[in-house]
């Protein structure tokens, strides 16, 4: 627990304990932990004298916050107007079906977290999918699955290497 307290103390200090900076603090916490662990939120709330209900309101209002751990990889599919018109829904359907995941959810083996977002601002090369920060343009259901199966294959290979 002491380590967690230390992390939060650092974050709070970074923003001079200004409660107006609650969102950046929570963003920093999430980038450290990958998500917002509830004990951390409790501690942060206590430290700032802000009720946990308000932290929860902020965490659930903004779609970028998550209260559960994410997968090893981050997969973002753009659902902006142009991507939508050029077939993003069928890509989403294909990914969800193949990996049994819901938009916003993580695969059971924690391989990746799948996010469908409003627009990533690369409309000229739609449809767009982002995997761990790398952009893929002109994606089709087949090419999306290929990329994601590649992640699974890499993981399997890494595990095998670990055994040897």
């Amino acid at each position, binding site marked *: 627990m002491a380590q967690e307290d230390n992390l939060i103390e650092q974050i709070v200090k970074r923003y001079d304990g200004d*409660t*107006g*900076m*609650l*969102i*950046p603090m929570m*963003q920093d916490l999430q980038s450290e932990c990958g998500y917002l662990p509830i004990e951390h939120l409790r501690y942060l709330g206590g430290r700032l004298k802000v009720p946990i209900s*308000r932290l929860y*309101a*902020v965490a659930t*209002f*903004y*779609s*970028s*916050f998550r209260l559960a751990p994410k997968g090893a990889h981050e997969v973002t599919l753009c*659902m*902006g*107007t*142009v991507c*939508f*018109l050029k077939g993003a829904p069928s890509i989403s359907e294909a990914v969800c079906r193949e990996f049994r995941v819901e938009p916003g959810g993580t695969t059971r083996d924690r391989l990746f977290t799948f996010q469908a*977002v*409003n*627009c*990533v*601002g*690369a*409309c*000229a*090369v*739609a449809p*767009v999918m982002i995997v761990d*920060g790398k*952009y*893929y*343009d002109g994606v089709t259901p087949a090419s999306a699955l290929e990329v994601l199966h590649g992640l699974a294959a890499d993981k399997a290979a890494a595990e095998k290497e670990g055994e040897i």
Partner: protein
Amino acid sequence: MTVLGLRQLNSLADLERIRAELLSRRDPSTKSVHVCTGPGCAAKGSPKLYELFCEAAKQAGSEVQVQAKAVGCHGLCECGPIVLVQPGNIFYQRVEEPDVAEIFRETVLGGRVVKRLLYENPATGEKAETADKIPFYKLQKRIALAYNGLIDPTKITDYIAQGGYRGLGKVLSSMTSEEVISEVELAGLRGRGGGGFPTARKWRSCREADGSPKYVICNGDEGDPGAFMDRAIMEGNPHSIIEGMLIGAYAIGSEQGYIYVRNEYPLSVERLKEAIEQAKELGLLGENILGSSFFFDIRINRGGGAFVCGESTALMASLEGRPGEPRAKYVHTVESGFRGRPSNLNNVETWANVPHIINGGGQWFAGIGTEKSKGTKVFSLVGNVVNTGLVEVPMGITLRRMIDEIGGGIQDGKRFKAVQTGGPSGGCIPTEHLDTRVDFDELTKLGSMMGSGGMIVMDEDTCMVKVAKYFTNFLQKESCGKCTPCREGLSQMLYILDRITDGEGQVGDIERLEDLSEILEGTALCALGKTAANPVISTIRYFRDEYDAHILDRRCPAKECRGLFRYEIDPEACKACGICLKNCPADAITGEKKVPHVIDQKKCTLCGTCWEKCPFTAVLKV
């Protein structure tokens, strides 16, 4: 000396001296390669190209001076990745990794043009060596994007060499705050974020408002899907925004600024952070700016991924660390906004225009555009158009010229159906209004709006009911839920639209949608709610027959809504190859060698696999 090799600038004369020095340091024999790393080109692998050019420049040794630059969006994203070679402004498109060596050897070292990488005009077959010979660029006029593609956004020296921060210098050394506001007023600048409110009037109200401190805010929460204008400016020329905010802050009397950037734009945050650091090092932000008594600082806040935060009061709530819920605006934010203090919010593109207005003069700016909409506007021209990308045009150009001449017409020889402007608050404009001039007031008259600049072109295969449903679904999900008309009204509208596209529409549904729209427009709390029905209303207005076909005939004229059309195999075109038969997951296709195949409509689940797989386009939607 700082890491930039420059000292703090203590006056306008200092700035000019540095600029002259930077220009004189430029060796005219230096060749430079500008690699576009805007979102479109980056998605197509341009960062790797940049690395390869840097490597090649290093290996070229000291005999030739070669410099590789990663620059912001050039605009013609469709043809990316784009690489420009100086001198000569040679414009290469669709550059791939193996091309790097050839460009370096032939053009950079040899001064010869690699013809096969030039843009070819599809109509004439003519090759264009430079951007100005490409039809896409001919009608454009670049102000906000003027230095995009020319400067390295990570180097303040590049911006200063182009004349950057001169506007700030002029303001601090020779203008009163009222003179600055009058200049912007003379320019007729209106807010580029969508509302089109006169910028000078906003600044003056904020300056005259009681209370301190006063805040200056830049809205970089570009939430409209299908738009990336602000992203291109933040990532391609961040200093133009900082300079604009500095000038605004001086005019208003503010000492603290905030830039609120969308969570989906991590690179924008990085570019702005670097830019702010560099400006601080040179004394262009902080205390005693350019030796004056003016003090100003900027903080960056990242959004949390909520569309509603693009609304000014919601954005300010978010800056205060609360959920981004808008409030009624009977008290304007210029009087009581962020932390209850006078706050002036403008969007990225508005701020980026300000230095140009100060440098070129309000009169010059007002000479561009239409009577009530001055200057230029940046649009993201996307969708089913040949040349997708980022364009900046003088206000008043017609939609037709934008789509046909700049956009190069509709992809795949299809027919135009509609153009959607204004994002989720805008509407769809049909063929008969293509000669409308693009300005704030004309687009509003058509039931759409200028919005922040998304321009999505749709071809004949687009179902307009589905488009209306897309936006309604988007807004219903993004509604903050504070006021009932928006929270409940959009859910009901979506319910009805779902029913219509599922083939279960009822007579009277169009009227029900119109009633709900009227309630939203009249009673929703914020501008997003008030305009949320625009996509539905504009499609009913111009494409009522499509709604009727869905409801009365159970038919989708664009053949997009599943269940409202059938798949059939054209016996004339079918080559009996068996691909559809093998791939059909429902075993609904029968046929044998040399016998045209047939779909059993009773078994068909309308999944569309046969339509996607047929190599002879023999599967038809009817």
